[in-house]
């Protein structure tokens, strides 16, 4: 069919992007992808008791965050969580810097116990083995999810299943280190000294009495070093990772912080949408944001009200002109039509700059008013960088979109109806109001919805002449896309706007039908 190529083209280049935006607005992969272990472990934690989670959670947190900070992903997680609770970004940022120090608390004593632990090749020998492919792939997938790349390639390392049974934490940490070293850094695993996290993980394993027992009967590579370590557990820090994190930052013990992490640990979230309507998800359920942080409902309202004012001014200004154009002889009408079409065809930026020239404090309108003596030089009118500026400029810019549909509807109204009404004794007003006006209502409806839809999504003009009090929701979306980088919120705001517009469009279709859209008279 002839339509197929275009349909495919539009779907791929337009519909899919829109759907991806809708998806973006609920997507929350960052948290489960960056700290998967913490997320699983947190499921069992009950925040209502007011206590921080268990040591186990902090162990996962340490290993996950260490990975994340190697891959520079922990700041991204911080930014994401900061949208929900202020302060989390700096918490993660500062903690990310000191993860090495935490690991060294275990690394130094371990290296004192047996100097072999200093040696990368020794570690490689100890951890390598057979049957560990499943574990390797599992860790590879976790890496891939975190950094968003496939992490495919030869690692040059297979963890030993036997060691993995005995030292689960250590094997996981070492495998993560091996994958990163081989794939991202493109170094040989055997030649590199392991991360501090691996020593920390060994410390975790050694706190488990079963592990200590298992080491006694272990005979594989590195058995002596491990036995020595198991025998001297007393030299290792006696505190756990919870204390280590708490020492870095007290906030890690705060149940609120953990409640937020738990709340946003699923891969889908309504958080962005709630944010977009000035609500927030708290451990106690959905609630209104504090008064001073509510901006979006107000902004949506302002966008709607201003779009309505602009639409109304367009109707008021456009109706007489459309009537005149529809009732003049064809030749005169098409000359006057050019006056309508010229601004329609003129670049939006040209018209916006025109209004900047006219409206600014030293602009044409103010200069003329001052020259005529109506306005004092000292207190010139402030026409720009506020709502007035946006309304004036956008009314001008959108007026042709009102006049054209109105004109095409009025063109179809027979002038003889008016004459008939008058000959039956109607006054001018009655004839207009009872006979002509009802017939022109579809035109008003079409034009209004067109103007309203265009106005509600305008970005450039409010940005340039609107200042702070004359901006629309679209400016906020652009701000979140390009400055604050809170893309999820931008997507949620966009989705809400999209729903509003589609609703309006549905009305438009009911009133005039899509086929009746006319352009350029």
């Amino acid at each position, binding site marked *: 069919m002839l339509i197929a190529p275009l349909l495919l083209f*539009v779907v791929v280049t337009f519909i899919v992007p*829109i759907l991806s935006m809708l998806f973006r607005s609920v997507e929350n992969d960052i948290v489960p992808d960056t700290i998967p272990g913490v997320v699983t472990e947190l499921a069992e934690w009950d925040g209502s008791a007011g206590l921080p989670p268990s040591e186990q959670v902090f162990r996962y947190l340490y290993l996950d965050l260490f990975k994340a900070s190697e891959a520079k992903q922990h700041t991204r997680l911080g930014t994401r969580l900061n949208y929900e609770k202020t302060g989390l970004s700096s918490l993660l940022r500062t903690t990310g810097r000191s993860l090495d120090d935490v690991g060294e608390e275990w690394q130094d004593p371990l290296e004192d116990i047996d100097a072999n632990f200093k040696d990368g090749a020794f570690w490689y020998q100890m951890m390598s083995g057979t049957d560990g492919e499943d574990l390797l792939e599992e860790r590879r997938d976790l890496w891939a999810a975190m950094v968003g790349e496939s992490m495919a390639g030869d690692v040059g390392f297979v963890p030993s299943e036997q060691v993995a049974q005995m030292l689960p934490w250590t094997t996981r940490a070492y495998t993560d280190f091996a994958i990163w070293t081989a794939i991202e850094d493109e170094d040989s695993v055997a030649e590199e000294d392991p991360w501090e996290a691996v020593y920390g993980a060994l410390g975790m394993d050694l706190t488990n009495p079963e592990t200590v027992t298992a080491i006694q009967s272990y005979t594989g590579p590195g058995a002596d070093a491990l036995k020595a370590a198991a025998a001297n557990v007393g030299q290792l820090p006696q505190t756990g990772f919870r204390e280590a994190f708490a020492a870095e930052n007290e906030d890690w013990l705060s149940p609120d912080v953990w409640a937020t992490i738990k709340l946003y640990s699923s891969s889908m979230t309504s958080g962005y949408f709630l944010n977009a309507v000035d609500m927030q998800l708290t451990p106690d359920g959905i609630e209104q944001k504090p008064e001073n942080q509510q901006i979006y409902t107000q902004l949506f309202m302002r966008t709607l009200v201003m779009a309505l004012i602009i639409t109304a001014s367009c109707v008021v200004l456009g109706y007489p002109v459309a009537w005149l154009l529809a009732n003049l002889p064809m030749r005169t009408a098409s000359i006057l039509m050019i006056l309508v079409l010229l601004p329609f065809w003129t670049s939006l930026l040209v*018209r916006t700059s025109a209004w900047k020239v006219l409206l600014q404090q030293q602009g044409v309108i103010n200069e003329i008013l001052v020259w005529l003596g109506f306005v004092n030089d000292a207190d010139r009118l402030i026409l720009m960088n506020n709502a007035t500026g946006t309304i004036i400029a956008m009314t001008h810019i959108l007026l042709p979109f009102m006049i054209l549909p109105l004109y095409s509807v009025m063109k179809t109204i027979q002038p003889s109806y008016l004459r008939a009404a008058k000959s039956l004794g109607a006054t001018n007003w009655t004839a207009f109001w009872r006979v002509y006006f009802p017939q022109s209502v579809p035109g008003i409806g079409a034009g209004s919805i067109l103007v309203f839809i265009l106005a509600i999504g305008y970005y450039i003009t409010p940005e340039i002449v609107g200042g702070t009090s004359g901006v629309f929701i679209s400016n906020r979306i652009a701000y979140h896309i390009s400055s604050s980088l809170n893309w999820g919120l931008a997507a949620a705001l966009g989705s809400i706007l999209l729903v509003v517009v589609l609703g309006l469009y549905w009305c438009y279709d009911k009133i005039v039908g899509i086929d009746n859209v006319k352009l350029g008279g």
Partner: protein
Amino acid sequence: MSAAIIEIKRPDLLTFTMPIVAVLGAMFGFITGNIFGDPWIGLIGGAIVGAALAGVLAKITSVKRWKSIWGVAVLFGVVGAMFGGVGGLFGGFLVGLSMGWFATWVGTGQYRKRVPIYYTPGQVLWHSTFLFICAFVFFFLIAPLVPVIWLSFNAENFFTFTPEMLSFKAEGYSLKHYRDFLGTDEWMVPLKNSLIIAPIATIISVSLGTLAAIGLSQSHVPGRQAMMAILISPMIVPLIISATGMFFFYAPLGNWLQVNLGLNQAFVGYVKVILAHAVLGIPFVIITVTATLVGFDKSLTRAAANMGANPVTTFFRVQMPLILPGVISGGLFAFITSFDEVVVVLFVGSARQQTLPWQMYTGLREQISPTILAAATILVSVSILLLLTVELLRRRSERLRGMSPG
């Protein structure tokens, strides 16, 4: 105008013309008086001048109407110049022009020329007021463009009028902003980008759009409404939303193209912007071409087929020439959509794809240089040309379809 010229009766001078002209004079007088700090004396003076003018013009019947209007304008201009220099000359001239026109328009009864003879005075008043309102709206539509063109010849780097410009001294004007526009990479590179992106996007949307419109115009299309809705959607969805969606989708798409097909970054950047612009232009092509096809006589294609032409020949030799005006004007809409588009480029493109509107936008936001106005003036000229093209095409199309060209 009409063949049967009805002798228009002059209204009574003392009870009608003079008071009305006096009111207008009073308004001008009030404004003029305000400049000199005494509006009320100006008001009274203006009323007297207005009444006198009406009286004098009523006596001069031997001179053609427009000659006397120009005479009044020049006279007022000279008087204005004596008091207020060049500004006064200009202002006086305008006041004179309007006063003279108004006085003769009322005085000779011209104001009744266009209305039916049976109209009551109230209806005539309303009719005239209505015309003034419409004139005001047209003024509102067109006037903002004038200062832009004027200021683009500014000799200074300001966005405002200098005293030299207002007193029409030669040193107040220069072409330097046009030289800036044409001579620097800052503007020429964006212009080049625009001229790369817009035509290619137009070609894509026109070729795909025309095909689809022809497909849609056939009688047996299942799900026509739904397909139409999808195809028109880029026009309905606000640009900011399209741009946001494209921002999320095109960035990974671009990365994928770079990594998997080994294309270089600049090329992929252009591809992204062109695809985005092409899809934005498609609704316009669909709408204009579908509208043209409504008037297309299907028996022509049947006749062609009957005489042995294959579908391709029929399309290019019979159908295409007839729908060409619609295709071209759809293409122009698509072109202007791409050429004028900022939001999507801002979101999807990188600095290398900076287009002319983008440069204007940054210029308006950051450094305010009248070079923007030079660019704007050039764009206005381009849009006038495009407008004329579309208008001519429309007339040709209507002529071809047997409608009155008007």
